[in-house]
């Protein structure tokens, strides 16, 4: 028989109590893993999203820069428009390597998401769109036959969702307009996967926004000239220039303040778990006063008693750590779903990335937590004087 089996058998004595305490630790660990996994995943996905836009600068109609940032990523409501003439003018600038005008429009489709209804994003693009995103590949079909045709190319996920193949007809419900599917893009892991692309002129025509744009994506020949370039557009009325680096920074800033909140939630969860463990073990030490006294009477040293109690605490936290990791892994999808709903802007990739290092780290964190939480109860138990513990321990 070993000390550890004495400790382990002790934990089995009050199964529900032990189970609940382990559960507390497990939840704290799971929260920690999920939050840290979210930190990592969100940054990665957002970076990917923005880098894959293919442009360093976006020119939009004047408005709130945060709104503009969200807008161009999500294409959500409150769209603002600018004249296409602006595009013609900017396009002449020699510092530009590639430039692509866009017109975003949203329509509510009541049949989407199994009848719940949902927003469909249509993006009017010109041929230069593909130049900005050279990695775009067709899963099926090809590019539009002309720049003013009633055709549509569907992002990977939108095509999956609607079960579309080239040759199908789709209907823009509120406009009662039919479009012919000519192509489907490969998955890019960005917002583009959910978008319906149509030729720019077609978009301007069917949404009745002649000569209007919502944004112009620009890739400069030299990123170093960004400052000058922004400066030169400064006096252009009705537009603003947003650099993607800025956008990334803005979004990270927005997220990091909420991150501070979530991190304190994790910290509180851990604190509560630690207090729960200390409370449970302390209670079980007091309940066992006589037993501890008798163990001392039959030869247990202070260190022996300390080790038994310390092991009990550590065992709880080791099991809590393991279960916490398991819960975190099993719960990723649920957490992902909840966060996605809660976030103002959620990138397309995986939001919660749980790595083996993260799991191991959190597990070790739980073990250390157990070692620390065990010190006081173990000290109390080992300090009991045998005769008092036995004779007065009732």
């Amino acid at each position, binding site marked *: 028989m070993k000390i550890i089996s*004495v400790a382990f058998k002790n934990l089995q004595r009050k199964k529900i109590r032990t189970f609940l305490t382990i559960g507390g630790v497990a939840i704290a660990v799971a929260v920690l893993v999920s939050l840290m996994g979210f930190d990592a995943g969100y940054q990665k996905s957002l970076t990917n999203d923005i880098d894959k836009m293919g442009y360093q600068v976006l020119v939009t109609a004047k408005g709130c820069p945060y709104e503009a940032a969200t807008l161009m990523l999500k294409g959500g409501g409150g769209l603002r428009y600018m004249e296409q003439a602006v595009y013609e003018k900017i396009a002449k600038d020699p510092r530009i390597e590639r430039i692509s005008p866009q017109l975003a429009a949203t329509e509510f489709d009541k049949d989407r998401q199994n009848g719940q209804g949902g927003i469909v994003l249509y993006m009017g693009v010109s041929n230069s769109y593909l130049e900005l995103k050279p990695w775009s590949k067709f899963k099926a079909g090809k590019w539009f036959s002309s720049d003013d045709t009633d055709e549509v190319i569907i992002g990977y996920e939108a095509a999956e969702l609607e079960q579309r193949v080239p040759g199908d007809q789709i209907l823009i419900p509120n406009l009662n307009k039919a479009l012919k599917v000519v192509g489907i893009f490969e998955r890019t892991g960005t917002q583009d996967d959910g978008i319906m692309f149509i030729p720019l002129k077609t978009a301007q025509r069917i949404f009745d926004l002649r000569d209007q744009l919502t944004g112009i994506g620009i890739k400069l020949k030299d990123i170093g000239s960004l400052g000058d370039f922004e400066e030169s557009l400064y006096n252009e009325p009705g537009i603003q220039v947003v650099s993607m680096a800025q956008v990334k920074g803005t979004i990270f800033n927005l997220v990091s303040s909420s991150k501070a909140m979530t991190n304190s939630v994790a910290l509180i969860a851990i604190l509560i778990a630690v207090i729960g463990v200390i409370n449970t073990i302390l209670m079980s030490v007091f309940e066992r006063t*006589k037993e501890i006294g*008798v163990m001392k*009477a*039959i*030869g247990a*040293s*202070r260190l022996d008693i300390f080790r038994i109690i310390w092991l009990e605490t550590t065992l709880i936290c080791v099991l809590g750590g393991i279960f916490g990791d398991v819960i975190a892994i099993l719960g990723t999808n649920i957490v992902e779903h909840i966060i996605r709903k809660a976030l103002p802007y959620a990138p397309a990739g995986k939001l919660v990335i749980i790595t083996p290092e993260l799991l191991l780290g959190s597990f070790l964190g739980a073990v250390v937590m157990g070692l620390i939480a065990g010190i006081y109860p173990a000290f109390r138990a080992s300090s009991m004087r*045998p005769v008092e513990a036995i004779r007065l321990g009732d």
Partner: protein
Amino acid sequence: MNNILIKADKISKTYRLFAEEVRAVKDLDIEISQGEFIAIMGPSGSGKTTLLDILGCLDRVSTGKLEVLDKNVSVLKESSLVKVRRANIGFVFQEFLLIPTLTALENVELPLLFAKLPQERDLAVRLLEKVGLAKRINHLLKQLSGGERQRVAIARALVTSPKILFADEPTGNLDTKSGQQIFDIFKELNQKDGLTIVLTTHNNKLGLQAKRIIYLKDGRIVSKEESSLYA
């Protein structure tokens, strides 16, 4: 050869109970030799248990000198007393005080674990057989009767081969029949193995079967007598 195991010289024990100072043992002298079988008797509150705790090195004297196997233990700290207990002393308690989560066998093995002695399963099994529990070795405590539990406790006290066995009211929680059976085990250990045994009891019928009887009253020895019933 000196066969005196324990020598107490004017030992006293005082402790505080609320505001009051209680002297449970007063200036008491006693010598216990190898092979003795002593019953400490007396009314409740006469200091029997306190005396036993002190002689068994569970507690320390307030004044006086106590030698256990020629070692002055009255000056030792708890960390040193535990070593004296481990090496020389076995304990049996009125309420058995076994560890309920362990089996009979594991309870008997526990002192070996604390004494860092090799965990000889054979030895523990043999001791359980000796106290008549051959068929109960792997039972959990809740499956055992009171008398059986006390047998486990005796086996546990014997596993480290102590020189003295202390038993505090070992039959106090048992019916007459199992009480006598437990007492018979003590007698046998004393007669066959020459184990020194010191126990306290309220039970005159049992106490008188010891070799020597010490009567306590108010923390003092009022009489020592050789038993006529010891056989």
